[in-house]
């Protein structure tokens, strides 16, 4: 029995995982990162357009601060987010972007003086301030009141991940590449690490750690059309679910990005629209202002994706040999802008579509993009039900995104959560009561169980093919648990997925090598993915309202009276075919921003009984403290700073808010 001991085991080598490891290591704790692929190939890499942080350097960002970022994020979430966590996030985001600047990320910078930009399809000239020259630049993104998205051309995630991974190398943090966590080791109350499979040799070993953190990103591959990388199969979510103790939060909240290239689903950044790109229909008509006069193309992603599908349903789609789509037009931005600020978009169009986006329109359609749900944690990043288990980034639900994430808030979250949770992991490891006291028998049991599962599949007696089950699952998810959801479809989806889950217990593999074996990998992952798919579909069926990205045609209104609550899913028994759902109410009485209209999308919603009273209270406090400044108002409305690690407290300097 091979056992590796460490203080901190990080599952996932993307931005969140790397930053947590760096934080823990700086505090004197040994960390090992497990990664399916070399860390620099993680899906964090694919973030193109940028990272939100309220620096307010550019003139169109002037007046931006934590308060504006906070409100945008909460509205974006359709009031599903934990507002304290959003506050922690918006206050740390400027620190995160500045830390990365010091670590070498070549952020695009402000050039003083006049420049031409496209706003609402008009060419206008704006003038950047002298004192902003050389500071980090920001671009416009959906659902934001100010230009807030810091960027590195359109290779932001790539540049961030390169710098972060190099910092991890500088800190001598080992990354065990091509290693996959198959199961968490736990005794029902405390997590002790994971059973890990070497994807080259097939060997299983146990990694035993004081603290275990899941940072495995999203679960897009549950869907047929997704912008996610092929490794984003939600296995981190699934192994937490399979403990039967840790809960997943809000899994039915799945984001669809408006501009996946059609039909491959490869992402082209929201920066295209942020920089002035337009959506057009079969007639070349710019249709978004018809639906969303306020924000037009730059409403939040859930809203734009729905409007696009709505417009397609009216027969306004263009058509190519693969089916119906709409057009993204960035020709008006000009070749120079595209080749400098939208390079990856240019390359993707060139290689995959054979077109020049400076001259031709890009065929687009919505594609699954982001998993708002994840391993439910407290604001410290720890599971409230399984001690020693942490999670951060897309795989987690500490809940800053609620039911819809804003563009630019994902890479920002990965780094911010990595910073914050990394500190709390170090605190956890510092406390002597958290020293390891695990019996090797528990480790041995977990290892044997996983080995037995693999052996059973390899014995080849099963008659089901994992690949077929997976394709069936992806079809169901895209067709019935997609952008527009209906009770009947969801019921059928749940039944069909349950049948697939039962069939998956009889998977056999044709190729029986115990070592590197892609078919075996597909087999064991498919079983896990089916549980996750059911958690999404069942959660969507039970939630009889529409909120953020979760849209029910049969319940089109947001219903705060009945549904201002977070879904928690636990998979109690291995033989179950459905998760057990419970709900955690959000407390309107403590909200800094009580529920209201988002500023885009539907204006029609059912109020929570506490909303009016809280709104009155908030208005009174704002009026009373109007002369005391924004920090005093904020602290009175909803104190949060005590939740941050001491290291990351404190204000953020800006050109207009000098220290």
């Amino acid at each position, binding site marked *: 029995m091979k056992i590796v001991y460490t203080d901190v085991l990080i599952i996932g080598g993307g931005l969140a995982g790397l930053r947590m490891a760096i934080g823990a290591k700086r505090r004197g704790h040994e960390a090992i990162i497990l990664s399916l692929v070399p860390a620099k190939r993680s*899906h964090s890499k*694919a973030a193109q357009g940028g990272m939100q942080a309220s620096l307010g350097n550019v003139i169109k960002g002037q007046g931006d601060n934590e308060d504006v970022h906070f409100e945008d994020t909460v509205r974006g979430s359709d009031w599903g987010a934990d507002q304290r966590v959003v506050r922690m996030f918006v206050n740390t985001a400027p620190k995160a972007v500045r830390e990365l600047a010091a670590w*070498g990320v070549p952020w695009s910078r*402000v050039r003083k003086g006049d420049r031409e930009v496209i706003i609402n399809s008009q060419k206008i000239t704006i003038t950047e301030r002298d004192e902003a020259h*050389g500071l980090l630049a920001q671009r416009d993104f959906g659902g934001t009141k100010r230009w807030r998205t810091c960027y590195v051309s359109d290779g932001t995630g790539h540049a961030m991940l390169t710098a972060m991974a190099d910092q991890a190398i*500088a800190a001598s943090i080992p*990354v065990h590449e091509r290693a996959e966590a198959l199961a968490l080791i736990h005794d029902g109350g405390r997590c002790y690490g994971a059973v890990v499979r070497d994807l080259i040799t097939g060997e299983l070993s146990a990694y035993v750690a004081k603290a275990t953190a899941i940072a495995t990103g999203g679960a897009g591959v549950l869907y047929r059309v997704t912008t996610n990388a092929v490794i984003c199969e939600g296995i981190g979510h699934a192994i937490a679910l399979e403990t039967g103790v840790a809960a997943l939060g809000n899994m039915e909240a799945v984001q669809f990005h408006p501009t996946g290239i059609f039909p491959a689903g490869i992402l082209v950044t929201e920066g295209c629209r942020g920089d002035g790109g337009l959506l057009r229909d079969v007639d070349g008509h710019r249709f978004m202002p018809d639906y969303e006069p306020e924000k037009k193309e730059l409403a939040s992603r859930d809203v734009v994706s729905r409007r696009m599908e709505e417009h397609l349903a009216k027969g306004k789609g263009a058509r190519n040999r693969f089916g119906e789509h709409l057009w993204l037009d960035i020709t008006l931005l000009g070749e120079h802008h595209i080749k400098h600020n939208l390079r*990856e978009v240019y390359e993707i169009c060139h290689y*995959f579509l054979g077109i020049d986006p400076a001259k031709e329109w890009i065929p687009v359609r919505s594609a699954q993009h982001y998993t708002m749900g994840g391993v439910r944690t407290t604001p410290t990043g720890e599971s409230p039900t399984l001690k020693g288990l942490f999670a951060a980034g897309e795989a987690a639900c500490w809940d800053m995104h609620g039911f819809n994430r804003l563009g630019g808030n994902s890479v920002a979250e990965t780094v911010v959560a990595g910073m914050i949770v990394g500190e709390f992991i170090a605190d956890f490891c510092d406390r002597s009561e958290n020293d390891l006291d695990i019996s090797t028998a528990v480790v041995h049991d977990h290892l044997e169980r996983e080995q037995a599962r693999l052996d059973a599949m390899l014995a080849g007696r099963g008659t089901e093919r994992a690949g077929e089950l997976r394709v069936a699952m992806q079809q169901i998810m895209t067709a019935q648990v997609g952008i527009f959801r209906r009770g009947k479809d969801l019921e059928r989806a749940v039944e069909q997925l349950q049948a697939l889950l039962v069939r998956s217990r009889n998977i056999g593999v044709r190729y029986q090598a115990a070592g590197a074996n892609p078919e075996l990998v597909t087999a064991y992952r498919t079983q896990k993915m089916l549980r996750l798919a059911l958690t999404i579909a069942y959660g969507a069926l039970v939630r009889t309202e529409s909120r953020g990205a979760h849209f029910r045609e049969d319940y089109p209104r947001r219903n705060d009276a009945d549904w201002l609550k977070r879904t928690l899913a636990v998979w109690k028994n291995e033989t179950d075919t459905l998760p057990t759902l419970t709900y955690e109410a959000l407390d309107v009485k403590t909200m800094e921003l009580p529920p209201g209209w988002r500023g885009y999308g539907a204006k029609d919603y059912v109020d929570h009984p506490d909303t009016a009273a809280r709104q009155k209270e908030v208005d009174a406090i704002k009026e009373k403290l109007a002369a005391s400044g924004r920090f005093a108002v904020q602290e009175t409305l909803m104190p949060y700073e005590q939740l941050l690690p001491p290291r990351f407290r404190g204000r953020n*300097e800006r050109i207009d808010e000098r220290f």
Partner: protein
Amino acid sequence: MADDAAHRTLTLQILRFNPQEPGSTPRMQPYQLEEADGMTLFIALNEIREKQDPSLQFDFVCRAGICGSCGMMINGRPGLACRTLTTQLPPETTLAPLPVFELIGDLSVNTGKWMRHMSERLATWVHMKRAEVDLGRIEEAMEPELAEQIYLLDRCIECGCCVAACGTARMREDFVGAVGLNRIARFRLDPRDTRDDAAYYELIGDDQGVFGCMSLLACHDLCPKDLPLQTQIAFLRRKMVVAGLR
């Protein structure tokens, strides 16, 4: 819909070898499949694995040409498989793993291990003036043009195509390759890095480094990200000659 009759039958000749499997020997194995609209090697290889041969090993992650996982020899030239459209290929295509790197099996090679080793050896991170920065303060300014120049070199995806295409790398196991030299060129540009040319000379001022390059420059021609490797290596060599003479 496109006319099915117009679709070609493609033959992919794939180099098969699994070092993990006792008795496995390198061999070419042909696979035939029908070409489809918009088909890339990513789609083709997955179809073969799904329908014909579950044992076939290859690596894809982003399938969008940005992560660098899928470098392989495509008709003898290194390239990214995910963004290679089959329409650009003849009816018969040969696929082989990238040379130089440790073979995992079939088309899968361990570029990650090689790149980590290179990064450790060349210390490919910004060597900061102070270990800690005050994160509450406004960031240090940088000229916009300089930031863009650094980004141009920072676009490297460590796919290994330059190493696979390199004459020196075939002969010298310890050569840092264009990928390594480009990293040094990038940090040399960056005012946030405190290292000077004398320090860089210690890292690359020998035959394992910049003086090992024979200027064949296939790296430049084959870089999937079109990095300006030729000028960067030439420039670095001049600077290192000067540093060496001091």
